[in-house]
């Protein structure tokens, strides 16, 4: 029974992830011969076709890279253009961008926790199927997701590819009456988000501590979202403009997503990395919820990511409340920002982790070169490393079905933005 088998697992379509991906795993003589997370989202070459467009057009274009996190793309781009011009947005603009970003964290985390990840833990194919046995949990998820969407739409008119962000601020400031309506809903949602934290913390987690490097933005004033320095758990602390000298992207034959490494090593970015590095900056009530949930942070168990997402959901709601509580319509929602020629750098915390942009802009404000490094390609090397450790720990003597389920669950911990969902591993086994 303890004999080694040759196992070949090929998952042609990963479901309940955003985008397209597949997993190939070949075990020979009890060790991994090949482990590839294939991402086959056809290349859309965004970095090339933003060339020749104006700054504000580029903000609308890069949103189209991801329907789940368009705000993140817009925020990294606008930050890059404003930094290049030496422009610091006024406190109103900064606060409201943070609120809009909270909306995106809220909708994306709620979508992931309820519709994509929770069915794994509870043994369902999809949230729609899960709704039969856990109607309240699924409803709560949909409600939080909707609230996040509405918070984005408050500033951008719609939640997917919103139209509100421009260089210098926003095109329009929301009305006081719209803000007070949403404020009321945020306050009602807070206890639900607290229940969500405890609910995720009560799930059964595999014991799977791993050593990995966390990377996140760090803001001296707050839990970083829309700006900050790049830091790691190993002492990295750099301005975002030095990203390219520390982080390298490499291409592998099995994926259209480039793999990123920090000084030659895989690293983690996203909710668990943020919480590990910045939890001391969470507001006191959020820390109390975190500390009372029964899971200890910082954590090096990737399965705790779902709890980290729930804690950030609670944080996003409380932060939006704090910033909207004394909302006033400003005299001007934006200021004109003259274009400056040079290299523009922007980096923000997308729901899935750091999203780094570089634009080379001419003196007319036309983009001449772009480089965009999304969180999923940064996490890909770490996912592959995690899979090999996690499956090894589970034991290759486990059934193919058990290996498949564990592999799916590991991948989904990272909420990879490659577009799929439930039982995505279709197993092909060849035994030697």
């Amino acid at each position, binding site marked *: 029974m303890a004999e080694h088998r040759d196992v070949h697992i090929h998952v042609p*379509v*990963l*479901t*309940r*992830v*955003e*985008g*397209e991906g597949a997993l190939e795993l070949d075990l020979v003589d009890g060790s991994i011969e090949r482990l590839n997370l294939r991402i086959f*989202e*056809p*290349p*859309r*070459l965004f*970095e*090339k*076709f933003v060339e*020749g467009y*104006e700054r504000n*057009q580029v903000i*609308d*274009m890069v949103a*189209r*890279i*991801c*329907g*789940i996190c*368009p705000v993140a793309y817009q925020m990294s781009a606008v930050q890059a253009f404003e930094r290049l011009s030496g422009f610091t947005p006024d406190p109103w603009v900064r606060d409201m961008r943070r609120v809009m970003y909270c909306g995106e964290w809220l*909708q994306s985390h709620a*979508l992931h926790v309820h*519709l994509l990840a929770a069915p794994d833990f509870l043994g369902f*194919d*999809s*949230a*729609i199927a899960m*709704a039969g046995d856990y109607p309240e949990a*699924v409803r709560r998820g*949909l*409600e939080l*997701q*909707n609230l996040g969407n509405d918070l984005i739409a408050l500033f*951008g*008119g*719609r*939640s*997917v*590819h919103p*139209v*509100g962000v*421009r260089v210098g601020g926003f095109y329009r400031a929301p009305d006081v009456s719209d803000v007070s309506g949403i404020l009321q809903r945020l306050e009602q949602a807070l206890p639900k988000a607290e229940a969500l934290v405890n609910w995720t913390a009560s799930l059964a987690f595999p014991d799977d501590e791993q050593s990995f490097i966390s990377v996140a933005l760090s803001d001296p004033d707050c839990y970083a979202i829309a700006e900050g320095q790049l830091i790691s758990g190993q002492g990295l602390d750099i301005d975002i403009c030095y990203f390219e000298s520390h982080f390298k992207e*490499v*291409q592998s*034959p099995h994926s*259209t997503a*480039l793999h990123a490494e920090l000084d030659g090593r895989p690293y983690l970015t996203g909710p668990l990395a943020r919480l590990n590095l910045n939890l001391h900056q969470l507001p006191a009530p959020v820390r109390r919820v975190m500390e009372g949930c029964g899971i200890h942070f910082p954590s090096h168990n990737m399965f705790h990511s779902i709890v980290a997402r729930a804690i950030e959901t609670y944080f996003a709601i409380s932060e939006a409340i704090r910033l909207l509580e004394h909302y006033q319509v400003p005299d001007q*929602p934006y200021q004109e920002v003259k274009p400056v020629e040079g290299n523009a750098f922007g980096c923000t915390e997308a729901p899935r982790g750091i999203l780094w942009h570089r634009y080379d802009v001419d003196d007319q404000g036309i983009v001449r070169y772009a480089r965009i490094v999304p969180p999923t390609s940064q996490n890909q090397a770490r996912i592959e490393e995690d899979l090999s450790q996690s499956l090894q720990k589970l034991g290759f003597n486990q059934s193919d079905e058990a290996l498949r389920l564990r592999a799916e669950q590991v991948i989904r911990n990272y909420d990879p933005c490659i*577009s*799929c*969902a*439930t039982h*995505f591993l279709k197993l092909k086994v060849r035994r030697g």
Partner: protein
Amino acid sequence: MQSEKPKLAVHKFSSCDGCQLALLNLGEPLLQLPDLVEIVHFAEAGPNAPDTPVDIALVEGSVSTPEDVERIQKVRAQSKLLVTIGACATAGGIQALANFTDRQNWMHAVYPNPEWIDVLSCSEPIARYVKIDFAIQGCPVTSKQVVSALRDLLSGITPRPEVQPVCMECKRKGLVCTLVSQGTPCMGPVTLAGCGALCPATGRGCYGCFGPAERVNDPALAERFQALGLERDAVERRFRFIMNSAPAFLEASERLQGDSDG
């Protein structure tokens, strides 16, 4: 009884996933959807049976690899009705901008080893390869559009496509014209309605993400934009944008380019 319900599939091609969110963002009604239809394939939501015959297939994304071509033909063969959702499926999407240039050169610029990736030289709309039964416009489409089209199709009615420009929505909403009153270059006069005049309501000009309206007088609008101080290439960029390869916008940008070449 389940087997008697009409079957629905949601297929993804090259896209940002934003149009599928029209369903995933439905909220509570998402849970009622299974009362109306049996969702047999919707990989992002869980169900994964791409080869099951269905009554209605919603297709997101553009065709951009040789594998996509085979897949869309299979989808067509097993679907009674095929409905494209969004700019990518309907007009090639923003990534059709790659069609204007040498895509292989771009591949070299973005990937060190482009030979590992198999792509067509163009990003094409679904209708370029198979017959489609209905197209829902928008980048992204709205939940309202998708649900109302599904309702019509399930009741055996052909949905009525939108034909009017965004200007009509501004009028209905009582919005002051951004083009006339503020001199903002607004694509509303040539762009299909359906968004609810989102950009003018947000204090900016429409940027054409729902694609061309039924009648497009692009020379008149281009002239107006130039009178507002836009250079010819800036006008061209406004047509060659999210819906760059929709025929009326494509012709408009080519006309502008022809003007500047001559």
